């Protein structure tokens, strides 16, 4: 499996660390809403199909990426920096998949 890191280009999955369900929202740090905390820490979407995930390019630039990936086919539909502000460093053009 190859993930096209917006900075480093397509790299083998061996360079990445999976950080799980990207739909979870961390409650406000001071929040005492236990349901929300529990949902954040323990409950995961686990779809058979397109999944919104977080990966870290831990064996490369170490940026965290938001990856939309199909869990039935492993097709990767999109990859983006999770922290999207690095505009002046031009993104490497994604490999043409056709």
């Amino acid at each position, binding site marked *: 499996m190859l993930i096209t890191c917006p900075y480093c280009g397509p790299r083998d999955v061996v360079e990445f660390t999976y950080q799980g369900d990207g739909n979870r929202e961390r409650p406000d740090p001071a929040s005492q809403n236990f349901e929300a905390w529990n949902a954040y820490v323990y409950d995961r979407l686990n779809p058979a199909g397109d999944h919104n995930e977080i990966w*870290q390019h831990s064996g490369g630039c170490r940026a965290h990426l938001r990856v939309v990936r199909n869990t039935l*086919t492993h097709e990767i539909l999109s990859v983006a920096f999770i922290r999207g502000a690095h505009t002046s460093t031009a993104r490497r053009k994604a490999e043409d998949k056709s």
Partner: protein
Amino acid sequence: MSPRRTDTGGRIDRLKTIRFTFDGAAYTGHAGDTLASALLAKGVTLYGRSFKYHRPRGLLTAGVEEPNALVTVLKGEVREPNIPATMVEIHDGLVAISQNRFPSLAWDINAVNQLGGKILSAGFYYKTFMGPVIGPLKGTRFWMFCEHFIRRAAGLGSAGSAKDPARYERMNAFCDVLVVGSGPAGLMAAKAAADQGARVMLADLEPRFGGSANWSGETIDGAPAADWARRTVAQLEARDNVRLLPRTTVWGYYDNNTLAALERVSDHKEQPGKGEPRHRYWAIRARSVVLATGAFERPLVFPGNDRPGVMLAHAAERYANEFGVLPGERIALFTNNDSAYRTAVALKKAGASVVAIVDVRPEPSAEMRKLAAEAEAEIFAGHAVIATEGGKALSGLKLQRFDMANGSLTGDARSIHADCLLMSGGWSPTIHLASQAGAKAEWNAARQAFLPPKPTQQWPTQHWIGAGAFTGSFSTTEAIAEGRAAGLAAAGGTSTPAALPTVEAVPGDPDPAPVFEIRAKGKSFVDFQHDVTAEDVRLAHREGFVSVEHLKRYTTLGMATDQGKSSNVPGLAIMAEALGKPIPEVGTTRFRPPFAPVSIGSLAAERFGDLKPERLTPMHDWHLANGATMYSAGLWYRPMIYGHAGETVEQAYVREAKATRDSAGIVDVSTLGKIAVQGPDAAAFLDRVYTNMFSTLAVGKARYGLMLREDGLAFDDGTTWRLGEQDFLMTTTTANAGKVMQHLEYFLDVIWPELKVHVTSVTDEWAGAAIGGPKARQILAACVTGTSVDNATLPFMGIVRGEISGVPVMICRLSFSGEMAFEVYSGAGHGTHVWEALIEAGKPFGLITYGLEALGTMRIEKGHVTGAEIDGRTTARDLHLDWMLSKKKPFIGSAMMDREGLIASDRLELVGLIALDNRPLNGGAHIVEQLDEANPHGSIGHITACCYSPALGKHIALALVKGGKARHGTRANVSDPLRNRFGPVEIVSNHFFDPDGSRMHG
């Protein structure tokens, strides 16, 4: 008569003689021979024994799909079992032996299994060996008794235990077009793609490129096909955008066009070159892939079809045309399709007499009749072979009139004398890689074969295009056209160059008759290696194991080393007939990696013999030179003790710990994780990360910090130093350095992107030496320049910068040992220099070096926690670190740390233990209230760390015990049935030694 070498023909070099042995007997062959062809040329007919019945078996094929002729190749002590003789290229000194036979291949005791044939039917294991319900053999005993013998009878070759001295390597490759298979289709594809300027890789599992061109006897562009192939390969070789990989099996098709291939680099050599690997594992990331993997010929299923001398038709053609070996003198053919007629002509040309062509079809075409006449062979149309004769070699066969409409046999049986019977049951495209890539094969009723889906079809994560026999286009003309089109398309080209090469080939209808089995009396084999017969398939049907996966699993059909390459479709066909359904309704097998077996050495590649890199501190060589015994901690190596001659480990660490507390000791702490936390929001970030406050820490001071996980459990601890307003140096435990780094990065990137903080691993930037003991300060004072180290300048948790022996250092006064202690950090490249300077300075003060054992002893005496206590299940409260949980701010884990399960009263809490029987304690021993040595029960906790405490003169331990703090001052018992250590202990506070810290505060 028997097989023999022809005088001319083939790729072999008759001028080069090669000497090798098989089962101890010396043989010769020629350069270019496989073990199979060389032995066949010498008249060998018996190559192996089948798995279950130990039936004698000969060569079925000439290639990778060989199920019968498996051998073990020996290189001294090193064994390579289960290699098809058809895939072993001979070289001088090759030693091969047969396997799964005792005492010899010709006389095998286990052949007696054949007598039990009907009882040893598919699935018989499941129905018996359960043994008695009562008595000494109840439970699993009877089965295990039987299994003992079953295991010894099973198995093919033997693995060795000697370490393979060979080298294995991995290679990462990138290309625009990977072409798999180098027959006419593959060669055309590679050429077309290369002409477009694409980066091309061409792989073929055979040593010689060309595929069927090497043996088809056809003509391409007016030249023999083999010459055309050689010329085309030479053209490709000359181009620098093409990499040719002969002897390379592409075995795995993974996501996003990542393919795995095994190149047998030096197996065919007597000795590999210096530094040359035996196998190279190619991980190929290809923009697109051309699959030109050809097709496998299928056997026919009829009684006696496994007798040595019965072979696939094209295999005989290969032996004759490619190796110059005739598999027999009097050859009969049995076919359901036209391709066997070409074989007949080829063998006739090579010098054999073709005594019969038995064709299940009632009316072979005029063209086929012409070919038969050319081969001077009699056609038995509308006939089938119903038996074979002979022992370990074929002597003849029987045929009978056959009606392919209903499978009936009529008329008198007729015998034909022959020493070789060739069969052709049609062809199955080699769709394995496409199947691995997710393509669902489609049954083609005309071809009687599973074909890959349309080549234009796109897969979500794989991009391949098929060409040639792989797509069911069995003629060379089609292969050439499809190959070029595929190569062009794969390279993104559209131009259509001039004429395609022209092919002269014998005619033939690619569609076989839908006949897979001849039902007559006797054992008819479907899976040759696993001895699965047509009756076994029908038995599976009767018992309801009818889906393709149940069929495989119940009968073991297709589970042998050839993975059903030839048996898969015949097996499905027989099941389909039993069910009265068409073949595709039985199901299609989904192929999985590998396409053919792959050496485990190649997969481990460069990590074979060197699993993990070694991580060394700057002072590593000094430790080795000064008598340290090293301890492997994760990837790091750290001194365990610096033992003196004759000392035990315990004597050494007790001496080191005592000396430290008496005068001073120094220990290498370079392995501690160190992370630079920098930026305007660094302090605010640390407040969120640690349970305690860091924004209040003054510049030039350090503080001990604790981190929790999101779920509220303890995660890691360490000191963090404030070097500047926006500049912190965080230390972590050695084991958790990487995890903490990822934790910080995650929060900065994902949760709090608004924080301006950078984190960088600087573990390797600094060499760290911790020097502690009553005389530590004096030693520092003796060697540090540029700063004072007195209490005013360097108070507890203070940091100063200075120099030692001309090298800048950073010194922080903090203590893990409980002594007055300092951590001295210098640039890693100066680590040994500073270390030696400290030791020199310490000499007058009795400074000693100490290792992890003494470090551990002193931390147990102090009751500090490490990974043994912060084990992912303990809370800050469990470890009595709740004083560090700030109430002034939220921090990671603060919201979750008070859930009911985490504050329950029966949780394990950290305590100290003192052995009341004055005997050593053991890590991992449990604690009980009441001892019961015979029947241990009632554990209330366990020991996490223990030692002999020189400071207390007692055997002590840290332990996690239920409701621990409330038990201080009470008695309990260690219960360690594993090591038979039982005895009384007193439960005390974990702070054994100097609980008020007067020593370190000095």
